[in-house]
């Protein structure tokens, strides 16, 4: 043994190291060895169990990446579907929440963004996609956009807001007229009504159902019922 001894008390140190070596010579007791082997095999079985280590290594880096991508694609797909969900769809709440987030983050562009959402609902209504609800949501968005600071509503944004408001009002009037021709239609009820929840914010969970007689038409001088909508008759419900 090539011990690099420091030169202090050499014989005593050598004796101590020999003693240390002797202390470590007795073999382990057979029951302890058997227990250790059994524990090893138990650990091996645990690892290869259904929820054990085999699953994770098999998954590996690539598998994990694929799983993540699947989740993201799934979530993205859900959002994409939800982006066009009709009011009667279970995914409509996600659409409202998405729009609410976009609107809240839009800052000075809120009038334009709100008008865009209203325009999208108007298109739904014209395509007879839950027409009444779509119109109601369009109006709610317009109402929301009209409460933004007037400075934000200057220029193109204000113009767009007014245009969409005019079109929505026209569409609502058409809706009322068609309701009057059908006595069973709830829209044919006489007199101005204020639907409960009309003041609700779009995207706040429960879609609001504003009355056609309320909304942006009262806040804008250009929102009269016959103010130049050139919607084709073919789009009537």
């Amino acid at each position, binding site marked *: 043994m090539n011990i690099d001894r*420091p030169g202090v008390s050499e014989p*005593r140190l050598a004796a101590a190291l020999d003693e*240390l070596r002797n*202390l470590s010579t007795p*073999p382990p007791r057979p029951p302890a060895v058997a227990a*250790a082997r059994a524990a*090893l095999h138990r650990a091996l079985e645990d690892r290869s169990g259904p929820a054990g280590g085999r699953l994770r290594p098999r998954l590996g880096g690539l598998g994990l990446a694929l799983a993540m991508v699947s989740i993201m694609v799934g979530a993205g797909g859900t959002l994409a579907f939800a982006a066009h969900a009709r009011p009667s769809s279970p995914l409509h709440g996600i659409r409202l929440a998405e729009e609410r987030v976009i609107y809240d983050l839009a800052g000075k562009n809120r009038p334009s963004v709100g008008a865009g959402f209203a325009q999208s609902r108007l298109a739904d209504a014209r395509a007879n996609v839950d027409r009444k609800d779509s119109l109601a949501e369009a109006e709610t968005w317009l109402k929301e956009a009209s409460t933004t600071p007037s400075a934000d509503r200057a220029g193109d944004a204000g113009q767009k807001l007014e245009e969409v408001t005019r079109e929505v009002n026209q569409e609502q009037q058409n809706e009322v007229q068609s309701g009057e021709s059908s006595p069973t239609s709830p829209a044919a009820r006489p007199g101005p009504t204020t639907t409960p929840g009309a003041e609700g914010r779009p995207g706040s969970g429960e879609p609001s159902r504003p009355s056609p007689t309320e909304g942006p038409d009262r806040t804008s001088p250009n929102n009269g019922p016959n103010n130049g909508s050139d919607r084709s008759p073919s789009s009537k419900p």
Partner: protein
Amino acid sequence: MSSPPAFPLGPTVEDAAKGDGAAWDRLFDRFHPVVYRYALARTGNQSVAEEIAQDVFVAAVKGVRGLRERSQPGVEGWFIRIARFKVADWARRKAREAQTVAPQETFFDPSETAITNLAAAEVRRAMESLTDEQQDVVVRRFVLDQSLEEVARSTGRRVGAVKALQHRALATLARHLDAESTAG
């Protein structure tokens, strides 16, 4: 240094990594004695050493996929590294218990590798005066008979660093033994 294995280590480690029980049996037969001996030299207690050796193999099953070594010294060094961590855990537990439990009269079970004579007790006390790193090097060098190069490779140090560590450990041991003999 222990004798080389009678089986090809590389394929055995690969089979073990796949969960092959027979491969693990071969690794156990080959390295359990070394691990146990290391633990016994570090702790001085047969029961504790047996328990640590068992824990080392359970931990090895969980960590074998990270084992890149396929050589005898590499695999042995890997097992000893795990054993070193287990010994450190045990030492921490022991220190905590010593703080919380009132000191009792020392009792040695004669069936164990007990410290039954003064020389052995002196050696144990002297070993406990070393740091974990110093004890590790002393046991590897003078109990497991590993070369400086093997210790260096297994512990990730340079040979010169291992030599210096060993030198300091032996100097501390010698000082401690001198002080014991003077006091005695």
